[in-house]
């Protein structure tokens, strides 16, 4: 087998139901943990809040990546009320702009998550 982690990768969603949950964190350090490839995460996780909910993140992760791993994809309501989320993932489309520690129009995909950060869904222009 060319990639020895593959079997574990496959086992991930079976073992953990394919969805992230409290029980799937931390204990297993190989294969896929929830939506995260779980090996070699040496540093400790921390939390920030999104719409009042505690979101777990690891150092270096963007807000967008941590939210995706937690199943949160609805980051913004556009001016016409339509729901939006991350689209390009590389800072080009600005669809993932949300309110970070009070600053509107902050791109979730370009902003590193920090412990204690307060992230809110942006409605319209965010004022």
């Amino acid at each position: 087998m060319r990639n020895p982690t593959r079997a574990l990768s496959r086992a991930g969603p079976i073992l953990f139901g394919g969805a992230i949950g409290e029980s799937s964190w931390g204990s297993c350090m190989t294969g896929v943990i929830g939506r995260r490839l779980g090996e070699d995460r040496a540093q400790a996780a921390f939390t920030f809040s999104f719409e009042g909910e505690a979101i777990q993140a690891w150092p270096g992760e963007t807000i967008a990546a941590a939210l995706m791993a937690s199943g949160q994809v609805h980051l913004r309501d556009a001016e016409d009320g339509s729901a939006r989320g991350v689209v390009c993932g590389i800072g080009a489309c600005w669809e993932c702009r949300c309110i970070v520690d009070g600053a509107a129009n902050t791109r979730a995909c370009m902003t590193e998550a920090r412990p204690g950060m307060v992230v809110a869904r942006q409605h319209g222009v965010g004022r």
Partner: protein
Amino acid sequence: MTVSVVVVGAGPAGLMAAREATMRGAQVILVDEAARPGGQIYRQSAAGDNAAKIGLATERTRKQTVLDAFSEIAHQVEYLPGAAAYSLFPGPELHVAYKGATRELRPDAVVLATGVSERGIPFPGWTLPGVMFAGGVQATLKAHGVRAGDRVVVTGAGPLPVAVAAQLVEAGAQVQCVALVHSLRAMLRRPAALWAGRELVREGMDYLRILSRAGVEVLDGWVPVRADGEQRIERVTIARHSGDARPISGTERALDCDLLAMNFGFVANSELARMAGAEILFEPHRGGWIPRADAFGRTAAPGVLVAGDGAGLRGALVAAAEGRITGAAAVAVARGESMDSIEAMLGAEFAQRRRHEHFQQAVQEALRIPDGAWSWANGETICCRCECVTRSRIERAISDGHTSLNALKRNTRAGMGWCGGRMCAHTLAALTAGGRLDTATVQMTPRPVARLVTFAEVANRVDGG
């Protein structure tokens, strides 16, 4: 004489241009939006997780070769990560927002290695959260080892959807199917080109094998019809098309999913080249509006050179070779020397570029999307995502006589928003030309600023040398 060269973009083209210019004695500043060098294709992992293992071993070797080549000279380069190169004026004079201030750079030459963004083609429901670009899904895997969904449908054209689908399988996602506009067998029409790119063809086969082993269906000749869901995607409907990309009624299939990964081509990040006065061509299958350049990357704008996908989509291997050529040419331009010696000295790079450009002809067979795709949107579909402008609003403005992209922007705000028109310009071009892409279509006038910056960043200026 010490000359100065600024390179914009730290993907394969920019990194190799920075290396070559440095090795030829130029003082080099490398400006990049990302936090780490590598660009999109060679994006590095953010933390010490195993995201670096995404992709095939051969791809990771290519990435390491480029990153190592840059590392060797990195200490001699002034590297500005997290920076926004937002205006380029004749001179060349480049304005870069960096750490809360603007650096005004007046180098002897600028190399633009700004790469591409993904192109969306609007269809009903495409603005729902959970509808992402395939490359964006891949970027999140590469940088963070996070997969963007559990039950995934992948759609689009060319090799990227297949690679991303296989990487998602490896990351534990359940991929429902890969719905391609064309069969990848379209590439067989160019056997010599396939041979030229045999390493990449082998990787494509590896990815297809991963999909087949996981029981993932790869459907050829399918297009998206609509995405449905409350506040996020829950279901996508796809349908067969008969060669023109228009869905055939009665062939629809609905698939439950929490992620739709799509790629319908690429858009060159050519704003700075356009602003500087380079001559611009519209080649929809090579990234849309791209600067015309000679064999050394020189554009019509004095002192402004271009390299890599931003100068026409041709992939990472062309970009790395072309970066070296253009980096050398930038130093020659800066010194007022002729290009005569460059082709002799960099013969291997010229050969590498020729070979992989040949392969790209085969890729383009698979990437070509029929004009019928511009009819996927209905009247209510948002075409300009930033300003929430629907197709019917745009068509009303066109029937009122606002038939250029500039006029449409003024009249409807389409293309005026946060993304700078990158997401909708091709759609607007297609709608103004009656539902097809016309190579004569002129892009919106590029104006400062090409990237969003704050007033504070613009007001706080430092002379950057």
